[in-house]
């Protein structure tokens, strides 16, 4: 009989995760026991307070990270989770963005006093039951616990230090998202279809991921990254298993990132999902997935970089090309933003593939730092932009067709101006965070020797700029068609989200230093 180690958990290091999941559970309990009319307020309060609490814990953990094997951090939960600089950074980012998303979720002033979520998901669209549900003011306050579960899963995903944890986390954050996608109050059919597609393709991709886990396990004999890394560096036979495993794992992760050729879900899902959910998904999923991608490929497969770099090169190029070109012909703002997010994924991949770690005490920008920083800039811009999308409405709910945005600059100068700012940011114009972000990833890639890739990326970001401009042109230089859109007066919730997004985009464009340094200080991964 083997000795049996009693497992132990590092409660302090894991506290942000525990808080988030705890809050999610509290949310479920609130759902179960609080009277219906008080649920909305309670849920909002619980979610916001919980997120803030988790954020505080994250900061505390970040300040207290100990030296570990040349970097700072700790391996927690029997090697399942790595709480290191990048993890904590991503946690903080995810929490802030999910806080903003939660505010968007809670907005109920835009649509006549109800949230953007279906009154009763089970009621069939267009039936008496649905009408009643909406007339009674029913609402799914379950979206808050779902949000929290998803956030928890994302945090775990980015910090997972072995493949099993990663797989479980992948599902933990995906499953609530699938549901959230199908909960739009308006355009239920679209929303349900989005949920179905997202689910089908998501499940498909996680199947690939899992088979990759199996193959890598077969190769390395273990699922934790340290052992994988060791096996990969040692290169003891079984090449096929390793390469197949890497490829399949990459499929799973690239799907979540929305990289070509695994992007086909993105536009449909972004368009169909409730806009608040889209914003959350666009920002946070990508961040979490990139966190995991970085960790898996840098830590686990760092020794096999020659094998996977060409693949990522190709994917990055394809992603940028498809994202930029297809966005050109979109006529729906959410679809356009979806393709834009694909293009952004391509840009981040450029930074990712640079694989530049910086010298021991150089101040040069490392790939990790660049990618993390880009994610920050991207996250805030995206949440802010989707926040604005919720404001532009007509009789049938949100007016997402681009032609409906015509003349917005005259109708609502402030909204149009802020939206333009976000769009310019996404296009990477200086004085916005989009520029500093792009600069960071391109630089790190160039340092890693991926100069041709950088050149391609630069050219494509010019193409990308064009479709952002189209929206600006539409808003400012085109005359409204028919009635023209109306701008719903947002409550303070959405206003805060947009304001924060705007401020972050501006500040990170002008003084990105602190956040860059923070990302730099995050140090490197531990294993």
């Amino acid at each position, binding site marked *: 009989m083997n000795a049996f180690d009693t497992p132990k958990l590092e409660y302090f290091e894991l506290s942000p995760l525990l808080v988030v999941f705890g809050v999610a559970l509290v949310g479920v309990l609130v759902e179960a026991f609080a009277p219906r009319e008080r649920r909305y307020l309670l849920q909002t309060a619980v979610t916001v307070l919980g997120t803030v609490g988790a954020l505080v814990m994250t900061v505390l953990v970040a300040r207290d990270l100990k030296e570990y094997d040349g970097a700072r951090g700790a391996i927690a939960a029997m090697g399942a989770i790595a709480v290191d600089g990048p993890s904590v950074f991503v946690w903080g980012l995810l929490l802030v963005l999910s806080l903003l998303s939660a505010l968007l979720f809670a907005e109920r002033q835009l649509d006549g006093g109800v949230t953007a979520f279906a009154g009763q998901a089970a009621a069939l669209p267009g039936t008496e039951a649905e009408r009643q549900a909406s007339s009674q003011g029913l609402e799914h306050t379950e979206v808050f616990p779902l949000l929290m579960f998803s956030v928890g899963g994302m945090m775990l995903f980015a910090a997972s230090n072995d493949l099993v944890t990663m797989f479980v986390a992948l599902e933990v954050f995906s499953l609530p998202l699938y549901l959230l996608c199908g909960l739009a109050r308006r355009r239920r059919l679209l929303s349900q279809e989005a949920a179905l597609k997202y689910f089908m393709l998501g499940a498909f991709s996680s199947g690939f991921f899992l088979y990759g886990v199996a193959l890598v396990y077969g190769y390395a004999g273990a699922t934790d990254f340290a052992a994988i890394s060791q096996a990969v560096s040692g290169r003891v036979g079984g090449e096929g298993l390793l390469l197949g495993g890497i490829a399949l794992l990459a499929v799973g992760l690239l799907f979540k990132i929305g990289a070509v050729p695994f992007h086909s879900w993105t536009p449909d899902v972004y368009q169909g999902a409730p806009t608040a959910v889209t914003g959350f998904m666009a920002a946070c999923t990508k961040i979490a997935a990139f966190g995991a991608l970085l960790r898996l490929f840098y830590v686990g497969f760092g020794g096999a970089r020659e094998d996977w770099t060409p693949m990522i090169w190709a994917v990055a190029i394809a992603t940028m090309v498809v994202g930029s070109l297809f966005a050109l012909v979109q006529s729906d703002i959410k679809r356009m933003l979806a393709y834009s997010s694909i293009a952004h994924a391509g840009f981040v991949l450029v930074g990712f593939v640079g694989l530049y770690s910086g*010298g021991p*005490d*150089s*101040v*040069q*920008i490392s790939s990790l*730092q660049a990618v993390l920083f880009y994610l920050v800039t991207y996250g805030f811009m995206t949440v802010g932009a989707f926040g604005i999308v919720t404001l532009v409405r007509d009789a049938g709910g949100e007016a997402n067709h681009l032609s409906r945005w015509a003349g917005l*600059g*005259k109708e609502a100068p402030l909204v149009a101006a802020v939206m333009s700012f976000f769009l*310019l940011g996404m*296009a*990477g*114009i*200086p*004085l916005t965070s989009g*520029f*500093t972000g*792009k*600069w*960071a990833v*391109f*630089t790190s890639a*160039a*340092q890693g020797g991926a*100069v041709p890739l*950088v*050149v391609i990326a*630069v*050219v494509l*970001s*010019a193409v990308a*700029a*064009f479709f952002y*401009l189209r929206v600006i*042109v539409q808003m*400012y*230089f*085109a005359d409204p068609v028919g009635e023209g859109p109306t701008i719903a007066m947002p409550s303070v919730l959405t206003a805060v989200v947009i304001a924060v997004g705007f401020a972050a985009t501006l500040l990170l464009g002008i*003084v*990105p*230093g602190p956040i*860059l*340094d923070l990302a*730099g200080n995050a140090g490197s991964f531990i294993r």
Partner: protein
Amino acid sequence: MSFPWLTAALLLPIVGSIVVMAMPKHGTIGRQAALGFSVLTFALSIAVALQFDTGEKGYQLTETHAWISAFGAHYALGVDGTGLVLVLLTTILVPVVIVASWRDADVGRWSTNAFFAWILALEGLAIGVFSSVDVFLFYVFFEATLIPIYFLIGGYGGPRRTYAAVKFLIFSLLGGLVMLASVVGLYVQSAKLNGGTPTYLLSDLHPLMQDVSTSTGRWLFLGFFIAFAVKAPMVPVHTWLPDAADEATPGTSVLLVSILDKIGTFGMIRFCLELFPEASRWATPVVLTLAVISVLYGGLVAIAQKSIPRLIAYTSVSHFGFIVLGIFVMNSQGQVGSTLYMFNHGLSTGVLFLVTGYLIARRGSRQIQDFGGVQKVAPVLAGIFLVGGLSSLSLPGLSPFVSEFLVMTGAFVHNWWYAVFAVFGIVLAALYILLMYQRTMTGPVTPAVAPIRDLDRREVAALAPLLALIVFFGFFPKPLIDVISPAVETTLTQVGAHDPSPAVSPGDVPAAEEAHE
């Protein structure tokens, strides 16, 4: 630490822009404020100029603060002679444009205030461009200028302004992003050469870039050069300019051609030449050829134009050919001439655009064929137009003559073939200016032209300073040359070029005298 003059000059218009935006929409208070701010900025720039020591080489009035350490970027401002001249040009032109465009924006899509606010914002950013001595900072300003001008073109002007604005932006963005690739490359190189500490500060980069490998240097140079070539519209990437000039309001056109496009030629001197001397020398033949082609092509096409603003735009293409020619001949005559040319071209083209703008606004058409005999009904207008035109074709006694002469000298010194071809440009200039004058101003008064009023006092007042300067510097260019020469010398040292013959640079001796005084 001394007072941050340049920062003040940069911030004042930007603050002004915000203030103007916040002004009440009705009445003229907004534009009055805008004028006030621009005049103040002008005053500030004069103050800067007064503190500028023409005897010193290198950047003056510098302010350096670490900005983004991870990027190696600094908030670093400073001007040398070239920069100062262009800053001055900017601050002179903006109040003129504001006065001249007093009512232009009333018919635009948006409020008049927005128009003036954008102008002020543009002014601030342009000052930033001309005074930044950090590549990153420069790039930020460089790209940021696109936004105000984009809205100025797209928001106020002719029927196809949207198209023109987008075309302009796409060209500029493409160029800018190509430059971004080079900026990124510069970072990588600087970090490599500087032992892991990247820097964008020009003063740090100058020594570092001497060691950059030949091929890398050439690639980086190309990135910068393409961006600047787009900006200073050189054939074959000039096609955005005629459209933009055609559709924009005259004021916008002035800002675009007289100020913004100078960023291109300014950038060539400051970045292409100074940072990548080897590559610059390597590229010289091609660049010079392109420059000559620009000169000739711009001139020829200008003759064929039917629309007045397009014609002026093409003359600018031709003029920019001269400027680039002067820059890349790599001797002091050429470069001093070029820098001077930038200033003078700003003035003369400004006059042309504004005065034809008045004309077009009165007639309601910009086709040359729609005019005729204007000088009979509006003699003042025709007179000013003539002066502007003559200055544009470099009539001796008017300021552009000096610069064009210097550029030609430089070209001759470098390789007389270029000069020979460039001379044809001068001939063409005479042709297109005089032809235009003849077709529009002389001849019988067409019925449509008959009701045209002559210029009123505001309009004349707007143009008067420009005319005065044209004439003044036509006879007495020394102050400018004094300012420019040290900068040119620095550049040439950096490039490693020497004047082939004993210096006959007209600037050298007087500059020394000035210093003694």
